[in-house]
């Protein structure tokens, strides 16, 4: 018996086990009912017992390696399909000399790298300016770590991009 067949049997066995457990629990919940209960109440109690049994069995199943394995298979397929459709659409756009989403993504990424480099540089300059100010004020100089910006709380200044609005009315 090869690995694939064995794997399939294991999955089937795990799946059979949850249903067996579920039915056992359901039967137990049915036996625990009082014979004096009226039909709607009886059914409600039985239903609640069944749901309880079902949720317990599913919780156990969803923690099993068989479930995670099938979930992984499903996710891998979804990812492969998405990649395939992305490639196809990019190809189609490029054929007609159009701009695909992948091109915009690359552009955005390039801009982000540029932004990161500029912001890092600005942070560095700001640290140096702080130090210079401190020196000019006659305050004691910070240590080496400060010179490299390590003691400075991290912050990405984005205030130029920010739009501060005054009270724009009530929201509810």
């Amino acid at each position: 018996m090869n690995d694939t067949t064995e794997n399939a049997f294991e999955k089937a066995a795990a799946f059979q086990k949850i249903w067996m457990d579920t039915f056992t629990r359901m039967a137990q919940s049915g036996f625990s009912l009082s014979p004096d209960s009226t039909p709607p109440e009886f059914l409600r109690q039985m239903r609640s017992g069944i749901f309880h049994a079902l949720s317990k069995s599913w919780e156990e199943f969803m923690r099993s390696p068989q479930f995670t394995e099938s979930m992984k298979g499903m996710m891998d397929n979804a990812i492969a399909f998405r990649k395939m459709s992305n490639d196809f659409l990019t190809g189609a756009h490029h054929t007609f000399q159009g701009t695909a989403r992948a091109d915009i993504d690359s552009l955005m990424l390039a801009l982000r790298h540029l932004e990161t480099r500029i912001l890092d540089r600005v942070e560095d300059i700001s640290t140096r300016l702080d130090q210079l100010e401190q020196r000019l004020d006659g305050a004691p100089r910070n240590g080496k770590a400060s010179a490299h910006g390590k003691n400075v709380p991290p912050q990405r200044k984005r205030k130029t991009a920010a739009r501060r609005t005054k009270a724009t009315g009530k929201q509810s």
Partner: protein
Amino acid sequence: MTENTTVNNPWFRWQQSLLDEGFANMRRMSRIPFLWEKSQAVKKGATPSEVVYEEDRLKLLHYLSDAKPRYKTPLIFVFALVNRPYILDLKENRSVVSQFVKSGFDTYLIDWGAPQHADRHLTLDDYINGYMSNVVDYVCERTGAPQVNILGYCMGGTMSTMYTALHQRKVKNLMLLAAGIDFATRDGLLNFWTDPNAFDVDAFVDAFGNAPAEFLQATFQLLKPVQNLIEKPINFFEKVDDDKFVEDYFTMETWLNDNIAVPGEVFREFVKCLYQKNLLVKNRMPVGKHTVDLRKITCPILNIMAQADDLVPCAQSAPFNDLVSSRDRKSIVVPAGHIGLAVGSKAQKEAWPEACRWLADRN
């Protein structure tokens, strides 16, 4: 046969209960045509607010009160990047925000907005050292207070923890609400499902960009499939003639289905560094070019957890108090689920008034 024996006769009781159930079903059916209208009449948010700051998609809401704030240090709510923040201000009698506003706190809430495909490259660094830091600076500037109080919910709690560790001097008190800190626990299903052998987050983000709202919604539904997909609709039908129940149900469902995507890079960092490598408790969590060290947190801590939380189990939040250097640490465990922690009646009656008192004592 006397009247008493007739009533005690099981056959009579059976017939009576079947008749009652039949009439109840007719009553329920008659309400169905009006459900659509009710579902559309749901209001989002209960406390009046104004937008005082905007940056990219972020909006900072300031909650309005008739009375002047009693406490000088403002309070900022930091919600998760998943779902919308109005769960914290859902309805008049189920609002965490209104509890703090009524207690005299100058209250703000960060609405991160819905990320679009162009936001897929935003990282935790952008959110924590960018947006959040700018919001705190703005609130300090606006109120004249040197520090702020922060309340972080769920993923927002984890982000607030990182922010506090990096900017301790700006935070006076930190309150966490079902915040994931120690991801080593296997109590929650998400911890199982995000195992590196089961979930390739890199391939996922590379293919999809942002983590799609539908994907997140399906994952959350799958945490309790029997309750969410079978029991809930049945319970709803049984109580469809109860107007109060229907109103609450639609309010809750509107929020639950109002999902938003999570920026791809944030999702990657969250899954990889937290769920898979558990770097936060190891004090090795990278945020941009900085590393989060929880020992740098020295402010008073209030850690609120939900006993029956299937998303962020108590075991994921509880270790936090032992990982920080704060001397003033407190935990509250509420007998509720992840959402019940904010809107549940038990939490509203007991936990939140206690949280307000805790914060008031430290202002």
